[in-house]
């Protein structure tokens, strides 16, 4: 064995690397073990625990948890007070998602198809910059901006458009004493805070639409509007869905913004927070927490049936 062509493996590291080369699956298992453990036990596990809790109920007199499987807690969700919370939250999340999609689309389209070099860098900076500052700081800043004595009222007065603002504030339900204590205010802050989560996936999906498909559509006689409807929108749909999952579920789950800006009506997140904390009704909190999961599941199932993922 003096003149072997290949050098034998020397040292434990080299032997280990040889082992991995011979058994690629071993490497895969080792690499995935930790993340899978995390995902399986901590993440799915706690979700399952949550789900299980929602099938228990609370004894109204003793306040103790009754560990018998029942649908009573879900029944409580349908009580008008609770059902209003769900409806309010879902409507808000839907409004925020639709508005975010409408605002994000032109921005994402411009960034994906027209911006180059410095403009593109500026785009990323402008979209990401708000994410660098604390969420709480941003929300309180908005409270000040929207307050009755805030800069927005001041600016609107300066422009002589107070009548418009007052007309908006006079709207039933969504209006209020000032923007900072109205649904419109809550909506604006949600929109501002979650907008980057719509722009970024949308921009990524628009960037992947090959330019020659747009030319092909044009060549085949489509007007710009038809090209948008039949080519751009379907191909951007995965990004739109991804973005709407973010904006929709983040709004569904948030419990801070409606506490700070708005007319202090409760949203699902706040209900969960209160029921698991002060009220000590863990089963009802769990049932409330299941609602967004079910809604998102339904939403994805519908999107899939409508062919939203055909372009994937």
């Amino acid at each position, binding site marked *: 064995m003096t003149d072997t062509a290949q050098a034998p493996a020397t040292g434990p590291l080299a032997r280990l690397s040889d082992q991995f080369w011979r058994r690629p699956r071993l490497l895969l298992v080792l690499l995935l073990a930790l993340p899978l453990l995390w995902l399986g036990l901590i993440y799915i596990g706690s979700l399952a625990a949550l789900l299980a809790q929602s099938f228990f109920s609370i004894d109204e007199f003793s306040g103790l948890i009754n560990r018998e499987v029942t649908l009573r807690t879900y029944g409580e969700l349908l009580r008008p007070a609770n059902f209003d919370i769900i409806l309010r939250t879902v409507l808000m999340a839907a409004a925020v998602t639709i508005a975010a999609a409408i605002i994000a689309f032109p921005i994402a389209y411009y960034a994906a198809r027209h911006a180059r070099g410095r403009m593109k860098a500026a785009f990323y900076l402008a979209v990401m910059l708000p994410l660098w500052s604390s969420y709480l700081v941003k929300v309180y800043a908005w409270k000040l901006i929207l307050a009755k004595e805030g800069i927005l009222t001041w600016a609107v007065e300066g422009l002589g458009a107070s009548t418009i603002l007052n007309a908006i504030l006079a709207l039933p339900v969504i209006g209020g004493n000032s923007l900072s204590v109205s649904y419109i205010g809550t909506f604006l802050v949600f929109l501002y805070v979650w907008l980057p989560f719509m722009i970024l996936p949308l921009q990524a999906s628009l960037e992947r639409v090959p330019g020659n498909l747009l030319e092909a*559509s044009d*060549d085949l006689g489509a007007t710009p509007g038809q090209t948008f409807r*039949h080519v751009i929108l*379907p191909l951007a749909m995965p990004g739109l869905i991804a973005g709407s999952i973010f904006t929709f579920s983040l709004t569904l789950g948030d419990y801070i913004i409606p506490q700070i800006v708005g007319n202090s009506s409760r949203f699902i997140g706040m209900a969960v927070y209160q029921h698991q904390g002060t009220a000590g009704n863990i089963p009802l909190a769990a049932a409330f927490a299941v609602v967004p999961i079910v809604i998102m599941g339904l939403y994805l199932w519908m999107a899939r049936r409508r062919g939203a993922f055909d372009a994937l």
Partner: protein
Amino acid sequence: MPLATPLAVEFDNVTRHFGPAGAPVRAVDGVSVGITEGCFFAMLGPSGSGKTTCLRLISGFERPTSGHIRIFGQNSEAIPPNRRPVNTVFQDYALFPHLTVRDNVAYGPRMAGVDRRTRHAAAEEMLALVKLSGYGDRKPAALSGGQRQRVALARALVNRPRVLLLDEPLGALDLKLREAMQEELKSLQQSLGITFVFVTHDQGEALSMADRVAVFNDGKIVQEGTPQDIYERPRTRFVADFVGSANVLSPELSARAGGPARWTSLRGEAVALTAPGAGRITGTVRSLRYMGAVTRVTVATPGGDLTATVPAALPLPAQGATVGLHWPADALHEMEGGA
């Protein structure tokens, strides 16, 4: 002024520059050419010579920097691509990935407001024409390269364009498929009577398929004519080199072999091998390239290399042997200029 054959497309001193006005890339540089209706017109040239840009000028995706393009006599400047009587088969097909093959083909009629039944029937008819009946429900991703190419063709033809633009449509196909598609395209063009403008960098493809060929170099058309013109009477050294059919003789070599002291071209088929000293010039065999029906024998002569195309029936010299080369006096074809 009545014309004998109407022009489908006419380039009138068209220029298209890209980049800064100070130092522009002259993608198309003073092109004037007429493409007659019903003609199979090939644009041939090396990559970067401006062929695609010319095609995009016809389809309307590029606008001329100067000059005019007329389509069926009409100035095209003000007409957007979606309203030109022209369709394109894109180089990489550009099929819509989210639509089935049938919906891809029916896309043009759908945009024109044709109802579903009629447009699906038209799509099926076109799919049959390109021999893809039964593939309507598939997505483009589930097709081979050759099948995608046919779908792209059907998608363009279903609109009954008066001019069909094809940008290297066979470039991505393997040799056998390419040859089959060449024949199909040619017979399709003849049976439909549509004007085809076909871009390619493959001289064999251009010569075998086209009625007329324009050879491009550096954004200019260096020669336009029938395939025979281009092949037998290349006007410049560039054409002779690019079409690759002919030997190019320097003025010295031409004069030494008894021809004019000019740049000349000489087709390999016209050159016969003789005994040393018996021909117009003598040299040593540098290489032999067996090509089946013929063998290309390259002979090093004092004035440069010459290639003779020898039919398979004739005897071949050995490599390094000394041979003579002979050709008829009228086989030598004079070319323009030094370049």
